[in-house]
């Protein structure tokens, strides 16, 4: 009996009228966990019932605690007929299972119905008493922290990065069960929602187990996805990076003994004692070792940019049984070895971790879902992903890299065809975070030359490049070779030296294909894929050159499959890396030079292109220092004008080495005009309209060249669906698709014009083909305002250092004290906070920047409480009796606060952002992962304002529910927020529509830096008190 879940139903408000006669509702609540259900009394005739129930207690295994959501159903009592359901609330109690996350869930949560949407709110209190279970064979993994953030979370430090964890669970999709024919849409939707909640819980628990097995205590960069396969099932899969994290706190002494007493600690401290861990680690770290030795041998080697592996194994489904069996056999032989992939879902790294970057590696595979032998079991899908990961691994190897960073996986499904994709960036990592000796790392760290350019230096062998590339000596250190362009899927390293600013670069492509079935279809698709990727690559390259830049970060290529077309969308952030050579221009070559008018045409176009490049260089402030060129000129033989290096994938390696030497800066990218594709390319190049004045955009976390963000942030989601005409040519389709994306961007700029000067960060586009002739584009991003005036002055110093600051040790003491101080002097701070509201620099963008007094106040209160709670937890731990002493008064005060907010002022503000940080603020606590899945359906589409009205409401509702749950956890923001799924289906003829949305993020508490400064005088006594509590365990 390792856990006791307690829930209390306090009150409801804004309930819908369920009884037409009286215009009132007789509401009661069912609280369900697992198979146990409790009910409250009926609160008659009220739309704002006050149940104030007893504590409902569920005694359950921690395994169930992790898997099951707490399900709260609000019903209208009906004496004569069946009770009507008003709606439900699912509460993920996972955040309560980790001692460092939230301790109580309390607040107003929207009551949600899949047909009617939000129908009022309910105030609940949920707590968990967890008894520690040291059983080694347990199935639960309570205490493992999960983060969506793809970097080391801001208030933690990485002790060790263990590596890749993945898991996949399969179930029958309730929508495709026979029973669905007879049940109501509501019942079907609810079955689906519940199932996915259960599956996510299970998945997270299983991943947690793997993490514990590896000796870690957290998963960073946790990415969970759903595959709605249809008939063959519903797949929930997740990948992440297992780490051992340590909260940055008090004294270094306690730091090595994290205060949570999870078994992982023991394992970590004495790896030799636990053979299983040792085995695990050794297999893991071996590739690292071999690679690092190679590194020291002499790495001033090889090549380039991008390794594309557009791999199609279409129609292979039938033959799958063979390799599958073999794979399974292998798996059983050496399960560990097979599972080990040197993959990291991180996109931002602790300093000194990322040594060199090779280039993008990707792999795709086309599969047929109706050929899965045992659809209810995960083996087949496991084998599929296994295949792809192996491929990625080998691609990385061929780039001379031992690791893949910024790794992600995705699928696209149309009927029975499924494209599996994986991509990442081949890299060489320091062993610093992969083995125990922290002293050893100091040495290694010094080996790395100038961090500003080190990662650009090629990791591969110069003479053994699998594709053509031009190498030059690094423009920063001039000691090692660098490629001419660099494509990566990671964020721009904070230490990288960049010239000018960056910008969003997109390549968009549409290809028609014939309608087909089964293997024929799969083959057709896999034949198309390489061309698609190749063209996307070409487009990216051209657009990059046109902007005068030489590197792409955050590259994400999405390929979506429909019945009659394939869509490809590549997004990345282009920058000019100071270490890399300046890109040459784009040169257009005509096929028939004799024709005069034709020449004229070409020279016009050439002029246009040249003008655009010049303009872009100005726009993005790209003026690399000219001096560098002269110095670098000497070791390189005389530059030679090369006429054609474009599309030379097949060139032999001899050729390549020659090219390396002959490369010069003036080398231009050549476009042959006779090529219809080229015409198209040029067209696409020139139709991309520049961002309006005052706007910048990127799809990475931070924009190089901009530092002084204000506190004004605006997260948004925009969705567009476009209906195409039948019988469009490829070109026509391309144009439409490209315009669709461009117009969407333009609309965003217009919407956010009040925030200028601002930057749209983390612009994340997702494309889908929901139906034949429909294209859906969804964007989630955040707009950040910045101060233009200061950009020039202190920009570099302050901005570049802040991210690193969080990790450096000098800062720790200060940080913790500040945090504590909130507790001791909060009463005196509140009025200050209030007076500050007035003087806050909200003038710039009044529409977004606001932080009400109530909000602040409550965040302080939360902080206090959390602090108090952690102290208590720290000292009590195993004896749950003391824990029990406190919950009631606290519960009371919480609900009081909530009541106050109901009658009086406004709802607490919750910020949402896809970034891992909040500008101008410090994240002081991570409260747990938010992972929510909702279905909304309507059979009165017109009445709800058509498809747009329907989806608008739904997205707003999803936001509201995320905010409410974060607030209930005691948080005031969600970071690393993403909308991973938005599946929209409509049937206007039947006046129906359905939409599924899946969102995730990390709930956090942040404190404005300005507020932190206010509290910088702190009493020492509080510090010792807490640290004692921590050591007591």
């Amino acid at each position, binding site marked *: 009996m390792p856990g006791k879940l307690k829930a209390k139903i306090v009150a409801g*408000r*804004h309930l819908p009228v369920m009884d037409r006669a009286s215009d009132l509702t007789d509401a009661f609540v069912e609280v369900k966990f697992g198979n146990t259900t409790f009910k409250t009394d009926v609160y008659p005739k009220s739309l704002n019932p006050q149940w104030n129930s007893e504590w409902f207690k569920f005694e359950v295994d921690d395994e169930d605690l992790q898997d099951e959501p707490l399900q709260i159903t609000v019903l209208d009592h009906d004496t004569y007929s069946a009770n009507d359901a008003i709606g439900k609330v699912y509460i993920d109690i996972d955040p309560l299972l980790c001692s460092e996350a939230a301790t109580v869930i309390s607040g*107003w949560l*929207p009551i949600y119905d899949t047909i009617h949407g*939000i129908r009022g*709110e309910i105030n609940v209190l949920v707590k968990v008493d967890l008894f520690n279970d040291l059983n080694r064979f347990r199935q639960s993994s309570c205490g493992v922290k999960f983060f969506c953030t793809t970097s080391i979370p801001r208030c933690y430090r990485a002790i060790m990065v263990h590596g890749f964890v993945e898991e996949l669970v399969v179930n029958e999709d309730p929508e495709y069960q026979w029973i669905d024919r007879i049940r109501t849409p509501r019942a079907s939707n609810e079955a689906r929602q519940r199932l996915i909640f259960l599956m996510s819980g299970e998945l997270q628990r299983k991943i947690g187990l793997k993490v514990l097995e590896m000796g870690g205590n957290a998963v960073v960069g946790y990415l969970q996805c759903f595959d709605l396969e249809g008939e063959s099932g519903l797949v929930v899969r997740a990948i992440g990076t297992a780490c051992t994290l340590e909260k940055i706190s008090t004294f270094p002494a306690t730091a090595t003994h994290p205060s949570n007493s999870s078994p992982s600690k023991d394992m970590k401290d004495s790896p030799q004692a636990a053979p299983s861990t040792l085995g695990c680690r050794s297999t893991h770290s071996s590739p690292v070792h071999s690679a690092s030795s190679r590194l020291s041998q002499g790495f001033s080697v090889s090549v380039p940019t991008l390794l594309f592996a557009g791999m199609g194994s279409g129609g292979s489904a039938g033959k799958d049984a063979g390799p599958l069996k073999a794979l399974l056999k292998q798996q059983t032989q050496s399960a560990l070895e097979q599972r080990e992939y040197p993959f990291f879902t991180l996109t931002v790294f602790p300093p000194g971790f990322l040594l060199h970057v090779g280039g993008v590696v990707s792999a795709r595979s086309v599969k047929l879902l109706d050929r899965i032998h045992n659809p209810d079991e995960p083996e087949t899908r496991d084998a599929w992903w296994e295949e792809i990961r192996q491929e990625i691994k080998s691609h990385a190897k061929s780039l001379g890299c031992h690791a893949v960073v910024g790794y992600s996986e995705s699928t696209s499904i149309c009927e029975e065809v499924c494209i599996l994709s994986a991509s990442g960036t081949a890299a060489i990592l320091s062993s610093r975070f992969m083995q125990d000796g922290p002293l050893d790392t100091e040495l290694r760290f010094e080996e790395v030359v100038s961090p500003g350019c080190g990662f650009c230096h090629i990791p591969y062998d110069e003479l053994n490049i699998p594709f053509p590339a031009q190498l030059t000596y690094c423009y920063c250190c001039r000691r090692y070779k660098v490629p001419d362009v660099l494509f990566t899927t990671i964020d721009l390293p904070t230490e990288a030296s960049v010239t000018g600013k960056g910008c969003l670069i997109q390549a968009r492509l549409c290809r028609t294909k014939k309608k087909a079935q089964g293997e024929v279809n799969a083959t057709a698709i896999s034949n198309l894929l390489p061309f698609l990727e190749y063209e996307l690559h070409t487009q990216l390259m051209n657009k990059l050159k046109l902007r005068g830049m030489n590197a792409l970060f955050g590259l994400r290529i999405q390929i979506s499959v429909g019945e009659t077309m394939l869509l490809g969308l590549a997004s990345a952030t282009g920058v000019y890396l100071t270490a890399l050579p300046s890109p040459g221009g784009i040169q257009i070559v005509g096929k028939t030079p004799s024709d005069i008018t034709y020449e004229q045409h070409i020279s016009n176009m050439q002029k246009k292109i040249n003008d655009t490049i010049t303009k872009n260089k100005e726009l993005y402030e790209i003026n690399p220092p000219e001096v560098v060129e002269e110095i670098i000129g000497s070791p390189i033989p005389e530059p030679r004008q090369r006429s054609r290096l474009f599309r030379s994938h097949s060139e032999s390696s001899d050729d390549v080495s020659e090219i390396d030497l002959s490369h010069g800066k003036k080398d231009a990218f050549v476009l042959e005009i006779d090529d219809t594709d080229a015409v198209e390319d040029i067209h696409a190049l020139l139709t991309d309209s520049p961002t*309006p*004045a005052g706007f910048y955009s990127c799809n990475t976390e931070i924009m190089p060249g901009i530092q002084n963000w204000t506190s004004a942030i*605006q*997260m*948004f*989601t*925009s*969705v*567009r*669906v*476009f*209906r*195409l*005409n039948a019988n469009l040519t490829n070109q026509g389709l391309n144009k*439409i698709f490209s315009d669709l994306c461009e*117009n969407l961007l*333009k*609309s*965003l*700029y*217009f*919407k*956010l*014009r009040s925030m200028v000067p601002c930057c749209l960060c983390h612009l994340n586009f997702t494309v889908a083909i929901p139906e034949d002739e*429909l294209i*859906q584009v969804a964007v989630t991003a955040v707009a950040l305002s910045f101060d233009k005036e200061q950009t020039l002055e202190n920009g570099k110093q302050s901005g570049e250092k802040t991210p690193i600051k969080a990790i450096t040790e000098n800062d720790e003491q200060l940080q913790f004290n500040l945090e504590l101080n909130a507790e001791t002097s909060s009463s005196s701070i509140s009025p200050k906070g209030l007076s500050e509201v007035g003087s806050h620099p909200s003038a710039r963008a*009044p*529409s*977004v920047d*606001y932080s*009400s007094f109530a909000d602040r106040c409550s965040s302080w209160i939360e902080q206090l409480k959390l602090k108090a709670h952690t102290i208590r937890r720290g000292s009590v731990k195993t004896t749950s009796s003391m824990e029990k002493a406190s919950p009631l008064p606290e519960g009371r005060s919480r609900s009081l606060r909530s009541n106050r907010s*109901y009658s009086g*002022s*406004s*709802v607490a*503000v*919750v*910020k*949402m952002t896809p970034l891992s940080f909040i500008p101008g603020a410090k994240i002081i606590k991570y409260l747990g992962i938010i992972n929510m899945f909702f279905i909304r359906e309507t059979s009165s589409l017109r009445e709800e*304002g058509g*498809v*747009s*009205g329907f*989806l*608008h*409401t739904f*997205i*707003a*509702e999803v*936001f*509201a529910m995320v*905010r*409410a749950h974060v607030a209930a956890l005691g948080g005031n923001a969600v970071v690393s927020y993403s909308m991973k799924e938005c599946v*929209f289906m409509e049937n206007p003829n039947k006046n129906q529509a359905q939409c599924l949305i899946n969102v995730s993020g990390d709930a956090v508490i942040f404190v404005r830096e300005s507020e932190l400064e206010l509290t910088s005088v702190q009493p020492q006594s509080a510090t010792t008190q807490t640290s004692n509590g921590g050591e007591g365990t």
Partner: protein
Amino acid sequence: MSVELDVFVGNTTIMDKEVYQLWLNGYTVNDAVKVRIEGGVMEECEASAEVLLSDTMDQYRTFQMCERLLHHPAKLANQLLFQIPPDRQAMLIERYYAFDDSFVREVLGKKLSKGTKKDLDDVSIKTGIMLKSCRRQFDNFKRVFKVVEELKGPLVENIRQHFLLPDPLARDYAAIVFFANNRFETGKKKLQYLTFQDFAFCAGQLINNWTVGAVDNMMEDMDVDLDKEFLQDLKDLKILITDKDLLDQHKSLVCTALRGKTNVFNEMEANFKNLSRGLVNIAAKLINAKDVRDFFIDLVEKFIEPCRSDKLTSIDVNLYLTHYTNSAHILDTFKHHTVWTRYMGVIKSCILRMYHD
């Protein structure tokens, strides 16, 4: 080829004041786009008409979704669906409840019923305000009326608290509710020269002095109805015109006081009995609900028009009314001083406010 679906949802709900105003004014999406294009927002932000259309539609949808909440402004503050900064919330409410003086002039004092609502298209044509906007304004009046009707305590305060309106707007609504409740006639031709603000001023005077809430600080009753007891007492004032001696005495006192102080003394003297009869008769009749409705028309016919035909300036009127009121207190046989003060105070300020072209 068409955009089938187009939505934008911000964590903080983005609302453009200009578009909000166009929406409130009843413009269709296409008309609103035209107005915006003419406003030059396109050049300013390098946008196209397409972008403008998309934005306008999106904003309109947002407003429609918010409208339900605006009907109960208190809900706007503690709803969870839209995250709207408090200052924005205040702006939304204030503008939603704002109204056109020319519109309110048309329905002031009318019963806020379905019948009146049906006639709104005529009002729309007459005032040039779009029907949609007329309907919104009318529904606002009705909603405020319904909520406040049954509440105890001061009217203005009730409105301010329930609808979170700024003070001046709350006062205007109090006037509208008060007029609707007492069904004051305001539409007659002779009253056309009066603006809504004139009436609102008068309503304020009446609310503050003639209702139960005005004298009784217990706030037990509402401000919406006139004090019945007071109306009953007003009948006693009739003695001022029925008693011949008293009337003559009053006249001589007033004339003595006025002599030499004005150019129109002769006219005043000649008209004294007439005017006095007019005012006292109004007072005496107020006990009948029907005569309450005619209060303003009576004031105009019985007092303002005669004065105007005698070319009295408002300074003259002020002078006259001051002495007229004060002299009554000196009359030895006249005993109803409190009622007289309470009555004349309001009458004087109303007449002075209404005495213009």
